[in-house]
């Protein structure tokens, strides 16, 4: 496919002497959902950190939307249209649910601090837009994050709702590519089923291309157009879910670390 939104070319990352990501080629096309699987320590989260600019790769190039994003600050990369969630949930815990989402609109809004002090009409209009945007993003999850929850602090949310809020927050940056780091971790089967449908909905309704790290093979099977398997920073398999799941290298990588991890 030539309509590549994100294209990693020979990307490497080493901490000291340890190669965490090794000469990796990976791409996400527009409108595609790609899953990254692999045992713990395979370099999946490092991959996300490389794409979002938290780490600088030690080799290779990352091209997003036709331009290299190497060397950009994380917030600049977000401005280009990449948003992510965190495996370890990094919400702004003491801010309200709505404010969490509103805060993420910072990058594509303008009102300066002096205009805010004076509350100019333009600033107020923009503020109203941010608020509506946040409410729209929260409405995406049905009534789970609606109503009275808007004004509750984020720490009062349940674990599953925190995961949902992270996704809502990420979408408020108006991205074209969403990186979801284990969106189903810690969820019960019902919620997992829900999140599977939701990711599909994010593509169809939201129009996002999605790169997702996931351990739950049901989720991976349910959502992926393409699956990439990593082990020790190397790509060991790529293709449809069936192809990857039956690939001998993948089976060995998982069995070698104690069987198929299913959280």
């Amino acid at each position, binding site marked *: 496919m030539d309509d590549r939104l994100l294209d990693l070319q020979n990307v490497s990352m080493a901490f000291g002497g340890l190669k965490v990501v090794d000469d990796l080629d990976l791409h996400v096309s527009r409108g595609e959902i790609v899953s990254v699987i692999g045992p713990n320590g395979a370099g999946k989260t490092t991959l996300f950190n490389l794409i*979002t600019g938290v780490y600088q790769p030690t080799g290779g190039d990352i091209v997003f939307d036709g331009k290299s994003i190497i060397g950009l600050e994380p917030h600049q990369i977000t401005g280009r249209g990449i948003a992510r969630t965190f495996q370890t949930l990094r*919400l*702004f815990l*003491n801010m309200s649910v709505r404010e969490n989402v509103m805060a*993420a609109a910072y990058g594509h809004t303008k009102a300066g601090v002096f205009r805010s002090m004076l509350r100019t009409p333009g600033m107020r209009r923009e503020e109203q837009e941010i608020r509506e945007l946040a409410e729209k993003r929260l409405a995406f999850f049905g009534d789970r994050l*609606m109503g*009275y929850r808007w*004004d509750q602090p984020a720490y009062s949310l349940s*674990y599953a709702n925190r995961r949902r809020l992270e996704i809502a927050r990420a979408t408020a940056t108006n991205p074209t590519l969403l990186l979801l780091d284990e969106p189903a971790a810690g969820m019960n089967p019902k*919620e997992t089923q829900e999140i599977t449908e939701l990711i599909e909905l994010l593509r169809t309704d939201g129009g996002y291309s999605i790169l997702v790290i996931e351990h739950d093979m049901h989720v991976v099977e349910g959502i992926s157009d393409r699956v990439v398997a990593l082990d020790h920073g190397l790509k060991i398999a790529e293709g449809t879910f069936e192809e990857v799941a039956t690939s001998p290298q993948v089976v060995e990588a998982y069995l070698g670390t104690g069987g198929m991890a299913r959280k």
Partner: protein
Amino acid sequence: MSGGYDDELSRPVEGALEASTSEGPTSPAVGRDEWVARHGDNRTGRTGRIGTLEARLRVVPWWAWLTTFVALFCLVPVASDSGYVRRVAFDIAIYMLLALGLNVVVGWGGLLDLGYVAFFGIGAYAYALLSSEQYGVHLPTIVAIPLVVLIGATVGFLVGLPSRRLTGDYLAIVTLFFLQLFLTVTTNGDDLFGRNVTGGANGILNVDPLSIFDRELAVSREGGLFNPAYMYVVLALFVVVYVALRFVNLSRTGRAWRSLREDSLAAEVMGMPVNSLKLMSFAFGAAIAALSGTFVTALSASVFPLSFSFPLLIIIYTMVILGGAGSQPGVVLGAVLIGILLELLRDPGDSRVLFYSAIIVGVVAIFRFSVKLAVVVVGTFVFGFVVHSIAGAVDNAWVNGSGGEGGGVADFAANWVIVPVDVAAWITPVSYISLVALALVLTLVHGWVRIGLLIPVLYLAAFVWENVMLSKPEPTRYIILGVILIALMIFRPTGLLGEKRVEII
């Protein structure tokens, strides 16, 4: 203008119930979340009369609070023509302004700025240099103040620059060092490359008073009383700063500040330019501190390096933490309370009354109205009188120390606490250290042992107060501030009105 935030609180929403039944685990995970939740419960779980009162008070809009508060404050010079009271009111107004500024950096930005007082000093010195004979420059106030604010913001920006790559602790040490540096430069600034810039330890004298449209605002009125107009000017600016900051806090900038306080990496990845936001909050705090500095210099017509030292920093931090970092009304309340407390502690009579009232309020607050309260109160009284009469019987000189000021409380104290005519040198450290040690032990024991121990500890506290602390108000004030800071962080980190916790990542 912010009505939308408050309205939502009380309105139940359809579907809320169903949504909450299908949740996974609702208790938060380990670590800091738990800490947050624990203290979160403290403030949301309020029921009963206090809870109702809280809910009622929450309906009052913020501007009504602000107007009432400022109106009452304006009445102080009307109600009292004592020069001392007016001067204290002015100082407290300055503290309020300073606390607002520090709240931007610490409360919203989550940056531990320990050089804050230096910016206050920079404002004071900048105004002095721009409006005195030091260089023969006499700028009109209307020009000088914006210039001072600009200078403060610029220096704040520069000092904040290293914070680009620094985490909280390092920033704290850099700013603390900056404060030390400021003191070094101002104290030795009478010979800066052979030129007298800051007047050294003698400071700069004969600084111009404020002027409004060429009319000078005399520092003192006839009779030597200082001009309350200065307090009104500061109050007016306080209102402007308060409202402006409130608006900023509710804008995208304010949200971004609070986001980076919560989790600076997440903020960065969510598209917020963390470094420039940090610098901005730093510059804001510095500008407000510098602004406050101008009025202090203008009113006292002089500026000295030692007015801007570490103790003042602790005073302002205590105000912000006590009131509740992150909450504007909180830090203002903190400024007023600590300002008054520090003044009361200056006067032996006032501080004595304050001490015994604080003990009584504290004991009642801990035990409520119960049998234990009765035991503690009666026990302490009896204990005191017994000890006092035994000591008096052995040697009258042991109990005949001066009673001093404080009205009835002083009379009571003279007949209850042992106050020797001469306090031997060893008594001071021994009694003080035992008091601290026993007070710490008190936090380790429980039940009736604690009550049994509390009685002698209370008596010992009174003894130390009467014999050691009363005659040394300066260290006593600072010791109390230190205790308040530690106790707040342990027992109520959100302060009195704080809704937010503060964190450095």
